[in-house]
């Protein structure tokens, strides 16, 4: 079976000599929702840019649906994978919202009718109203600028969508909106990768988490299993969300250390209370202390 993404022994050196990735292997299948986390300088952004074909491997290779990014033409790349920059302003440069979203499809040499269809579809998915189409994207609030940036990627209909720091500078409401929207795209069959520092967001949305540290893959697995690795995460300076940390700190009472959310934590506490596990712990301790 061909994987959506297959990273083989990827090493990447920046022109200034910085060794950013040291032999990374990674497989992501179609329809996954994954998060790349790790400190700044850990290699998570370099990895995601290599997957997006924005950077090409120094050694090793990146395969998208079985094809090496080194062999792919821009058009093929653009329809396989789209990369949304952290700062939408690094991406936006057209005078109107319509032209911004139409830029990609026009470069695919589609007819203006097809372009219009793509733009309208992308705008509808991200919830951009018709009235914004002739406005300058630069004067929209940040939340809307980000939607324009995502729409302009969607209009290319890429199978994989990578979003760098989707929630930075957003408030909670906007963060939830953006993330629910990415989840919606995931439901439509797109493979989603987010690169982020926001652990609550990872816990809530990503089924799979890849932890990067010093250019290497430190952990990779289901998010709850990854966050339960408290000792390893500490080395990568990653702080799991508060419910996970609380459960870990109190795991000697029988709390499962792999809870991710407030809901799970509270359910665990109630379960323990009902089973009298707290009493058992105390009983054991007093026995042991004798």
């Amino acid at each position, binding site marked *: 079976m061909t994987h959506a993404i297959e990273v083989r022994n990827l090493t990447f050196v920046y022109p200034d000599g910085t060794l950013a990735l040291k032999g990374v292997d990674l497989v992501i299948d179609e329809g996954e929702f994954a998060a790349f986390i790790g400190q700044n300088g850990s290699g998570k952004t370099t990895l995601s840019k290599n997957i997006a074909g924005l950077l090409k491997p120094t050694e090793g290779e990146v395969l998208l649906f079985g094809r090496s990014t080194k062999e792919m033409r821009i058009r093929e790349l653009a329809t396989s994978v789209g990369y949304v920059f952290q700062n939408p302003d690094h991406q936006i440069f057209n005078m109107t919202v319509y032209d911004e979203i139409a830029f990609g499809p026009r470069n695919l040499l589609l007819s203006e009718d097809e372009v219009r269809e793509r733009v309208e579809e992308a705008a509808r998915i991200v919830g951009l109203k018709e009235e914004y189409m002739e406005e300058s994207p630069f004067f929209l609030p940040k939340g809307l600028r980000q939607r324009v940036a995502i729409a302009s990627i969607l209009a290319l209909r890429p199978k994989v969508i990578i979003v760098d720091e989707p929630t930075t500078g957003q408030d909670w409401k906007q963060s939830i909106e953006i993330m629910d929207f990415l989840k919606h795209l995931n439901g439509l069959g797109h493979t989603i990768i987010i690169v982020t520092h926001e652990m609550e967001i990872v816990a809530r949305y990503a089924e799979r988490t890849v932890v990067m540290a010093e250019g290497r893959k430190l952990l990779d697995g289901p998010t709850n299993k990854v966050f339960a690795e408290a000792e390893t995460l500490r080395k990568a300076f990653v702080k799991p969300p508060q419910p996970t940390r*609380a459960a870990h*700190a109190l795991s000697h009472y029988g709390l499962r250390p792999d809870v991710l959310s*407030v809901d799970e934590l509270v359910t665990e506490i109630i379960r323990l209370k009902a089973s009298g596990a707290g009493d058992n712990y105390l009983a054991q301790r007093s026995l042991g202390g004798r």
Partner: protein
Amino acid sequence: MGAVAEPAIKVEDLWWKYEGRKDWALKGVNLTIERGEFVGIVGPNESGKTTLVMAMNGLIPNNYRGVMKGRVVSVGMDTREHTTAEIARRVGFVFSDPESQFLTMTVEEELAFGLENMGLPVEEIRDRIRWAMEITRLDEEFLEKPPYELSGGQKQRVAIAAVLAMKPDVIILDEPTSMLDPIGKSEVFDVLVQLRRSYNATIIVVEHRLEDIAYLADKMILLYYGEVLRVAPPREFFDNIPFLLKHYVYPPEIMIAVHRLREEGLYDGPIPLRFEEGVKIIEEVLRA
């Protein structure tokens, strides 16, 4: 010297509408911030938080076009009757994007810039820079570096040091950590803790992340689409979790968890302000 201490900031029925906009950004805001208070301002984006703090140091109405009603008195100065430059000496402002604030080629020049403009003697300038660097934990080695070569957290510390060196009565920080990675964020919060300890100024912080502000603040303000909905000490402010969630303020998850335990009838004490306090509460619940 007057015996009655006037408040640091007094906002009276303040309305503000940016030129060309339909809606009022601020709708009748009343607030008093006392001297020496540490105040956290929270609320969803587009609620007018930045507008409100810009009104406190005179950037609004003096440097923006729009319609203003009501009045703001900052350290005794009616902001309409003083220039932004006059007010800025007493009310310092740190932006969320430190780079937007840098004017010079080295950290040293950056820190000296405001002080030279104040016409202070060289000795005094040197002392103040040393003092500001100590509080913001900047090493001497930084002085010769260009600000843009520093990490995000270091840049923000330089921006804070530059404001601090002016020894303002009030320091306003508008989302000082929102552009920073977790390490940068904690660097800046460490500086806020230092500021609180070693400098008796009024500190006003606009911040989304409540984990750290919850235990630092004397007073929390919820601004919601132009209106002040709640002003309370943190213990009271965070006591009503559903109210905060309803207004798109997301409290630290440990607080939400303890709130839920209260709803389940497993706990009846206060909401914890620190993570460790929350863990202790859960432990007590488990042992009870």
